[in-house]
């Protein structure tokens, strides 16, 4: 029994070596990896537009349930300047490509196999939606595309009075 307790304490001790990530307030200067290879900076990918970054993974059922909403959002607001991108977190290109072959998306998908971008954004939960304004500030973090997140997006897209 004593050995079990030591094992448990060891487990906690080892785990605490990696501290929680700090949350970014603005878009960090990080490079995104395209599905077909090659890189592009996050800021360039968003092009100074109002944007939604969807952090997701193929195994994440809640992410999958959200995807139809994001498709409809992209379809409805792309013409008004909204950029939706997906960031697949913690998975290899082969896993992602196999998934995308069966599940086509209308908005661009990028890869973050080693959590580098997610850590720079200060996010550790899936799914997470980040709403970005035209200045590159992270205005809202949400686990779902809900009414308030949609209201925030619409307010950012609205022309200045």
């Amino acid at each position, binding site marked *: *029994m004593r050995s*079990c*307790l030591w*094992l*448990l304490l060891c*487990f*906690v001790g080892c*785990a*605490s*070596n*990696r*501290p*929680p*990530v700090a*949350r970014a307030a603005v878009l960090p200067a990080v490079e995104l990896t395209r599905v077909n290879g090659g890189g592009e900076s996050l800021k360039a990918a968003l092009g100074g537009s109002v944007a939604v970054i969807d952090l997701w993974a*193929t*195994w*994440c*059922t*809640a*992410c*999958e*349930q*959200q995807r*139809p*909403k994001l498709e*409809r*959002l992209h*379809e*409805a*607001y792309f*013409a*008004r300047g909204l950029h939706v991108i997906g960031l697949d*977190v*913690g998975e290899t290109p082969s896993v992602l490509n196999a*998934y995308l072959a069966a599940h086509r998306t209308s908005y661009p998908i990028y890869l973050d196999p080693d*959590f580098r971008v997610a*850590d720079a954004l200060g996010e*550790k*939960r*899936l*799914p997470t939606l980040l709403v970005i304004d035209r200045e590159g500030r992270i205005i809202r973090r*949400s*686990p*779902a*595309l*809900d*009414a*308030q*997140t*949609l*209201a*925030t997006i*619409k*307010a950012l897209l*609205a022309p200045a009075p």
Partner: protein
Amino acid sequence: MRTESRQGVVVAAGIDTSKRSRRRLLRLLWCASSCVAAVGHADPASDAAILGQSSEGPRVDEFRLRLTSYYQEGHGYQSKAGTLAGPGSERSLIVQPMMLVGIRQNARIHHEVVVPVDIVSAASVNALDVVSHASAVNEAIGVELTSRFDLTDDDQLTSNLAWHEEEPFGSGSFGLGYGHAMADDNALLGISGQATFDRFDYLQSNGDRHGRRNRSALNGNLNLSQLLSPTTVFDASYGLTFQQGTLETTYNSVPAFGGTSRIGERFPHSRTRNAVQARVAQHFPETHTTLRAAYRYYWDTFQLRAHTTEFELHQYLFPRLIVRGSFRYYAQAGVDFFTTAFPAHESLLLPRTADSDLAEFHAQEYGLKLLWLARGQSSLDIGYFHYFRDNGLYANVFSFGYGGGF
């Protein structure tokens, strides 16, 4: 809808939807109702069409069914289904269908209604069967209502009410809980309390019925969950329970007087129980694996001491198929008034029990569960658990579950 964390493949598996995730969802839904009306310009598509929502009003948002069968075989001295001086059969088959319905009342209030139904076929569990053999089957039904209220972005109140009724036994309970999120949602502090009242027929081991008896329990729990790293969660809790009233199982018996007779079980009038527990869950993103480990220490005023160590491994085999393996080791030092032969010269007022559950023993449980995540929010699972202990009891548990969200 579930929020999932990298450390929380467990959550992704639908095995354990975290309270924090649900609280966060409720919080966002509440905000939505106040903010959505603030934006007035023309929309290329309606909000409802994008969000796929037909209504913000009350609706059923979750439905789960579970069927569990529990079969145990073994012998214990408390059972009369044997010789006067020896242990009797503890053979028992319990089939428990269970239904859960989640109801979203509004953006800030959510309810869960659980209806468990027990069907028990037993040699010794049912007192009436032991003493009269009048029936081989016993049914029990109950209902539990748990409600969650978002007070602020970081504070949540929960309440629960439960009622249970079966052949010589009725029980009711209610409880309140409060949770507070701290450190940017990286920590959650919870405190809860519960009161339970039981009322039951006083059936003696010889079949005599002596009216009704009561017992009550007050329980308090303190819990702290802390995100240690993006892939590690630590959780610690302490629970205190105070019981009083007729605590013994009145129809249980104890071999006495050199094996020539049996007398009824007798417990002290009150019992204070304590438990501390620590758990850690570590997720390994590279392999889609989550390992959980837990240790629990229990002690009470009956001088019962118990250690529990538990390990769980969750592994994605395919994107929609998860396997969960578990192992639990339990070691218990029995209560200080356990006996299998009550001496003739002792006072009959002394506490005594021959219940094998309260004896000294070591137990192990192995479990395997397969969970299939269907499209949408549906899931199916099938599980098998084998439990055995070194004082003559083993059990096989099969479970089958279906869940759906709306």
